[in-house]
Structures are given as C-alpha cells and as structure tokens.
C-alpha cells in the first residue's frame, strides 16, 4: 500500500499560507491559513477527488488512521475546528453557524468543487449546517453519527449528557469496546482532550448539541447522503440515526456492529468498506 502523500495543492489559492506549523498535539504537520479573520490549521493529504473531513469532537489523534485511509482515494482536507486547535476564536465566532460559514468560505477560498463532505459527530453537525446553506460545491455527504438535529420529545435525550456522566460511563457511552485509557495519553493529548470538551461547551452547551431550526431545513441537503452509525452508540442511538435517515429522503443508513459513537476509530475497515460501497464511493 503506498503511503499517503502530503500535498500542498494549489498553494497560490491559499490566501495566507504562512508557515508550516506544528499543531499543539505535536504530531501532525499542518498548513496554517487564514479564512476571513480566523486562523485555521489545515492538513491536506492524499490524491484524488476532494474530500473535506470535519473531525469529531473528541480524540482527534485517534481519527488519524481514518484520515490516512481516506487519503488513499481522496485528496483529504482536514481542518482543526477553531478553539479545538488551542487558539481562542474571535469574540464574535461562537456558534455552529460560524463554523458552517467558515468551512463554506474555506471551500470557496480553495476553489474546491465536487467535494465529498464528510463529518463525524460534531463535525457531522457542521456538515449538515453547511449542506442546508449551500450544496453547490458538494457532490456527496458522508455523515458519521452526526449531532445537531432535534428529533425527540422535550423530556427525552437525543444526546446523552456526557458532561453529567461519570468518566467511565461517559467512555462506555462512546465506545463499544475498550475505550482509550487516559493514563496512556501524553500531557499534550490530555490537554487537547480538555480543550475538546471546552469547545463542545463553547459552541453547543445550550441548546445541547442541536440547532432548533435545522430539522425543518434538512430537505435543502440535496446531495447523495450516507449516514453511518455505530450499532452500540450510547451517545446518540442508532434509533436516532434511523429517525434522521427518515427525514433525509434518499439517504442511505449503514449501522456498523461492534462500534460505538466513533465507528471510524473502532471499526475502521468496516467504516471504509461501507463508505466505498455507498453514495460517496470515489
């Protein structure tokens, strides 16, 4: 298997590529660029048609194998969400809308067309918000256990209250198998985990992980859509996935057994096989 190549494609289109920056986990080499007034770490790797991957809220470093596999078939663009990158976002940048417009601007700035927009969990929510605003640069949507749409009754939890769960229960809700062991994390990875939690709260504390308006506009996401769910997701249940799929005509739902909320981490091969066989097939 050839190693994925890191490409700085069309550097002239990156308005402000300043430097090769090392992100704060110290593991990935990234380009630093500016979109509007927002500084963004963007990793570009692989070759093939463009794919924008919006990462899940937790465990960015554990999602790297998935990104590497995507890069075998796509040119994968992976931005780090503002705040999650260790920087403080601008004072007027604090809603899911801001993230959606930021990445729509990013696609425009890079002049990407025919994009497979992939997002997991919190990133899946951003992808949905982008798709209902403008699908003009998109060819397909790949949504792995996305958040963001309110479907249950007012006294039901669509999304488990992770912040109110003991740490062990929280991890059991997120993983079908053995969860990551914090004792093995580096100091930087632990700090990153705390940053991740901080910025989930920053963008989505109340209402908790949804946009009340999103459900009624789902019909605007007009591109072929693939929903992928973990069969043992204790954070957002597969039943929620089925209800969401029913709201998105034509969407294909695959439930991956043996995976919790992050099938791209826990069942990488199965997730890739599903993606290659679905509406996003490259």
């Amino acid at each position, binding site marked *: 298997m050839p190693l994925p190549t890191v490409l700085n494609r069309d550097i002239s289109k990156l308005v402000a590529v300043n430097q090769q920056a090392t992100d704060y986990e110290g593991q990935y080499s990234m380009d630093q660029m500016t979109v509007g007034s927002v500084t963004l770490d963007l990793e570009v790797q692989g070759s093939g048609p463009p794919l924008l991957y919006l990462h899940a809220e937790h465990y960015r470093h554990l999602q790297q194998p998935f990104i590497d596999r995507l890069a075998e078939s796509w040119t994968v663009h992976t931005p780090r969400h503002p705040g999650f990158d260790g920087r403080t976002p601008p004072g007027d940048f604090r809603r899911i809308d801001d993230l959606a417009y930021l990445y729509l601007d990013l696609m425009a700035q890079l002049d990407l067309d025919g994009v497979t927009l992939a997002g997991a969990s919190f990133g899946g929510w951003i992808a949905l918000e982008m798709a209902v605003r403008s699908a003009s640069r998109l060819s397909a949507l790949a949504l792995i256990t996305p958040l963001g749409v309110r479907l249950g009754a007012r006294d039901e939890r669509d999304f488990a209250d992770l*912040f109110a769960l003991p740490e062990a229960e929280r991890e059991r809700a997120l993983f079908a198998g053995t969860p990551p062991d914090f004792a093995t*994390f580096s100091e930087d990875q632990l700090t990153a985990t*705390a940053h991740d939690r901080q910025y989930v709260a*920053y963008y989505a504390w109340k209402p908790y992980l949804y946009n009340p308006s999103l459900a009624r506009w789902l019909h605007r996401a007009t591109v072929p859509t693939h929903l992928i769910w973990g069969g043992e997701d204790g954070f957002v249940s597969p039943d929620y996935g089925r209800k969401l799929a029913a709201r998105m005509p034509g969407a294909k739902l695959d439930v991956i057994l043996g995976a919790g909320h992050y099938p791209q981490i826990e069942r990488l091969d199965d997730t890739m096989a599903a993606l290659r066989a679905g509406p996003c097939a490259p």
Partner: protein
Amino acid sequence: MQVWHFSEMAYHPGWEELGDSLRNVIPSKVYDPKLGADLYHRYLDEWALCDELGINIMVNEHHTTATCTTSVCTIPMAILARETKNVRLLCLGMPIANRMDAVRVAEEYAMLDVISRGRIEMGFVKGSPSEVTPANSNPATLSERFWEAHDLILKALTTHDGPFNWEGQHFQYRQVNVWPRPYQDPHPPVWMTVATPGSAKLVGEKGYVLASLNSGYANTPVIYETYREAAKAAGHEAGLDRFAYLGIVGVGETEEEGRRRAHQILDYSRTTPRMARQFQYPPGLVPSEVVGRELGNPSPRTFPLRDGSRVEMLTGSVDEYIDAGIAFAGTPDTVYAQIKEFYDHVGGLGHLLMMCQGGHINHEDTVDNLTMFSKEVLPRLQAL
C-alpha cells in the same frame, strides 16, 4: 473588624444516606420537608439572634445539594431584612453568571435594600463548579457572562431617569428600568469572592470588598497582596475594610469544648470532596492543563498546612484545619490569639466571615458559640 455569621442551612440529616455524592444527582426523596422546615426555622432563628449579639449576617446559595438548602439567597435575606433591625445583611453571594435574568437580580437587591433601610451588602459570585449543571449555564463562557451581568446590574441600579437599552452578548433588554431604586446611594456595597490572584487583580481594580474563603495561611497573602497592588494602580485605597476572610469558628468554656464545636462545624468542609468528579471540572471553567492532569491522574481534594504539606479535606482533623488557618477554635482567648495571628500574617483584614454553624453542630451549641463569641471575642476584634 466587622464580624459576620454564615450558615449554609445544610440538610445534614441526609448526608449519611447520600454517601459519596451530596450534590447534583441526589434524589429529593431523601429530603423530609417536615424536618427541613424545622431546620429552616432553626437557622433563621440563629441569624435573628445575631441582631441582638451585634454580629452581622451572611447568606449564600447553592443548588441541588444537601450541603446547602439556601437555593434562593434572597429568600432568607428578605425574611431577615424585616426580622432584624440593626445588623448588616450580606449575600455572598448571588451567582450572577448562572442567573438568566440579570435585571431581576437588580430588582431583588434594590427591594431588599429598601426594606432593610439600607443594610444590604451586595455580593456577586461566580459560583462553585457544581453550580453549572443546575443552572445549565455554559461554563466555557461563564466568566464573560459574570462580568456582563455585573455591568448590567450596576447600570440598572444607578440609572434613575427612565429606561435604557442593553444588547449584550449574554443579556438583551430593550427597556431596563428598575423600581424601586436602592436605598443606599449609589448602590449597596459590592463584594466578590476570590480564590486566585488573577481574580484578586480584577476585583482590586474595581475596589470592591474581596472575600477569600478558607484560603488559609498558604494562599491568602498572595491574594491580598495582588489586590492591594491592583487597587493602588487603579487609584483605590485598599483599607482593611476591603478584605474579608471566611473561616470556621468554635468557641467554648474550655479548649476541648471549643474544638469539639469546630470539629462538628468542620463536617461542612469535609463535605467539599463529596461530589461526583464530573461536576468538579465543567468544561472550560478550569484551565485545560488542570483538567488534563486530572483526567490522566485524578487527585483527592486537599488543603495546605503551614509547612507546605497537604491534607485531604475529607479526613482533616481540627488541629490540621487550625494549622492551615481554616478553623479558629478553643477558649475565647485562644480563638482571639489564633485570629490575631492570622490577621497579622495576611497584613490585616476588616471582615471575619465566620461559620459558627455548619456540619453537625446542634442549635444549643450554635447559640452558645455565637453568644460566647459576641461577648468575649468580638469586642477585641472590633478594636483591631
């Protein structure tokens, strides 16, 4: 020095049954309202007694906890505003970042100030981490919400020529117009609790009364010194009346009796760690480096002794809490000497916020504790 009596109105009868966690997720079926009513009246009686003893009154509020059943601080304040005639009434305090209606806070404080004929001291606090969940208040933006609420409340209390508009990040009103206006002019004195030098700097710049709670010999001096420097740089005079310290006080006829009372009250301090860990570190409230360290290696809650060693809050003895400067206990002479020693260590202070009630101390001991303190310790402290 001014002295204040503070109680959290605990529902201690439920503590044993509730076990390791006394907050946030505790079912209210554990609470017996008939017993609770007796306790409310008992605690209010103890505060009312303070009006005769010349001890000022301090209340606070917490939510969803058996350690403090003052869930609405302005309710005991309202009762005491009418029931007492002389002493000052401090609310320390109002968790304004967790209050979704800041104008309502201004209204409550203004009304209390008028009823009490200007005896209100107006505390604003950020609240403990476990307060985030009951309020569903975003911890990642709590600090900026706190300061915006502060700005809005003060403007609401000091604007007397009709409505103004407020379109803030966290609060929006088109017609802010608070009635009644406060009794004190321009408004009741402002107090803030401080636990870090960073907060001390902000409070010093404003020149408000700084209250440090149980910060002891180890942590109090840097907090006070930071305040003094910030106040001076901002042009405020940092007199002793700007500094308040909260400690546990047990006075008795004998050393043993005073220490027994403090030991019982210290069960309040020992409940501090009895909180499910996930509520101790709300996301974004504490620096990520601290949260990260706790994830990798959870640590028990401790307090520092004078020699720098640390003791677990859950099991600390009276001697250890006295050594730390968190408790003052013994005969009146001993208690005065301990307080004076602490006073000298921190460069002086103008307010002792004392818990003469807390934990498992009963009503008779509390009354005796307060009465003996007022007769034999208070006069000496007032002369400082």
